[in-house]
């Protein structure tokens, strides 16, 4: 297993799409606050502080996570089917379960790295321009670490879903396209079905798709915290196991 994880990290390090994504999101993360900065400066409005910017825009990071997971799933995992590399990997004398688990772990780490770019780069930039400021009253001192920690957890949950799609579609284009559509539409779909069938409403309330919006809440009730922590973890484990099951039965062409 150690070798499998090592080789996945080696491949991630050499993956141009991964670095391109990191670079592109870094540039956007630098440009986005600058637009507000110059806009506020010309209109005379008070500037965002780092803390205010983070609180206001952390929910937008969900789009970065979804986009990052979809693109990386396509170019990091699905691409191996089209290049034929998956044949070498699958015939290397390792169980399919281990192969998928190693891929999922490293893919999740790659997606996590992407997910941290926007909150960190933007917040640091805004703090440098206008100072970090104060977190709102009631926010815990651990707010920052909680936001970043939950971002990582939820990204892992999304990564598990993305990895499952790669095994199903085995094609970069299909994986990216379907993942994007799925991640963007699932909220609406679950909310719509949930309005008719209460089970789906509950399912949506306790899904990563809904709870990802709570990452940036200044304060979280102690009763809500277990769900906020457990849902992404369970998603990662359950969807990861589903991915292993599908991959074990998959014939590689």
């Amino acid at each position, binding site marked *: 297993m150690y*070798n499998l994880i090592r080789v996945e990290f080696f491949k991630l390090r*050499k993956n141009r799409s991964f670095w391109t994504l990191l670079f592109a999101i870094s540039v956007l993360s630098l440009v986005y606050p600058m637009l507000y900065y110059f806009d506020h400066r010309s209109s005379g409005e008070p500037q965002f502080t780092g803390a205010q910017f983070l609180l206001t825009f952390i929910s937008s990071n969900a789009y970065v996570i979804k986009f990052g997971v979809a693109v990386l799933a396509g170019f990091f995992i699905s691409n191996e089917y089209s290049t034929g590399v998956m044949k070498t990997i699958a015939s290397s004398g390792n169980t399919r379960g281990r192969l998928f688990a190693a891929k999922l772990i490293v893919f999740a780490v790659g997606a996590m790295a992407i997910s941290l770019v926007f909150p960190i780069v933007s917040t640091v930039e805004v703090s440098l321009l206008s100072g970090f400021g104060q977190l709102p009253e009631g926010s815990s001192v651990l707010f920052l670490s909680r936001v970043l920690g939950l971002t990582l957890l939820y990204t892992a949950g999304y990564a598990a879903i993305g990895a499952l799609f790669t095994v199903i579609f085995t094609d970069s284009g299909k994986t990216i396209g379907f993942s994007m559509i799925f991640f963007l539409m699932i909220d609406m779909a679950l909310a719509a079905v949930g309005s008719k069938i209460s089970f789906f409403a509950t399912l949506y309330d306790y899904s990563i798709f809904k709870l990802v919006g709570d990452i940036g809440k200044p304060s979280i009730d102690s009763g809500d915290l277990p769900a906020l922590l457990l849902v992404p973890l369970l998603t990662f484990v359950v969807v990861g196991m589903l991915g292993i099951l599908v991959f074990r039965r998959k014939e590689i062409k």
Partner: protein
Amino acid sequence: MQEYVLKTNQISKKFKGHTALDKVNLSIRKGSIYGFIGQNGAGKSTLIRMVTGLAFPTEGMIELFGASDEWALIQARKRIGSMIESPALFPHMTASENLEANRILRGIPGRDCVPRMLEQVGLQEAGKKKAKNFSLGMKQRLGLAIALLGDPEFLILDEPTNGLDPMGVIEMRELLKRLNRELGITIMISSHILSELHLMASHYGIIHRGVLLEQLTARELNDKCQQYVFIKVDNPDMATAVIQNELGTADFEVMQDGAIKLYSCIEQPGKLSSLLFSAGLEIEKFMPMGEDLETYFTKRIGGNSHV
């Protein structure tokens, strides 16, 4: 007792009503070079994919190095090197990086095997070149280098000479023969270039429409390949009359250009040439010949089909 690296027992593969493989019993002896012959779609790649764990049999059993249960089979695959259908490469990585990735994957200690493998396949100068910039022949060589990583005991190669130039084909053949001879690596090789296979294989398996028609050794093949005398004379009609009257046989074939293939009474070519000469015929060509693997294969599958 013969030791086998691979045995399949009544292995079948069905896809939505189509039988790709039908109860195949194939066996490959340790130390042999097994030429696996069949037309496109005959089932060669399907069988190879099942042996390497990429596909699963509908029925039957695979025995690899004596292991047949699921876990033992997975472990046994660590002793295999393979290149299936096309070389599996990371296009954005250099040749060395491709080998390095596979070295880590297989848990091979030490990086010294990377330059050694590049040298073995003649790519020592191209280690820093990206695989996407390689010619097809270079990709084939790199694919072979990857398959050879970890010194496998059994090498499975599907069309390894695709895209190689004539010198490349010869080099590949010599390399495979050397690996077999010096390191004792058992090789299973499927190729459309039957003349090439004929120069290296010690055993053959002929598969047609999912059915393994025959397995035979190179010696058995040579024995089975029909021998004949190729005769070209100025008057084919008179020659055939001489053969029929003097030798009492009609076991011959007259080709479109008037050349005659005589299949009987070929043990005494001297007597035959004297008879033709005595009849006043001018002999342009007179050669004892045998069928090649291609002709044998075509006859065996029953038609003029192409491999």
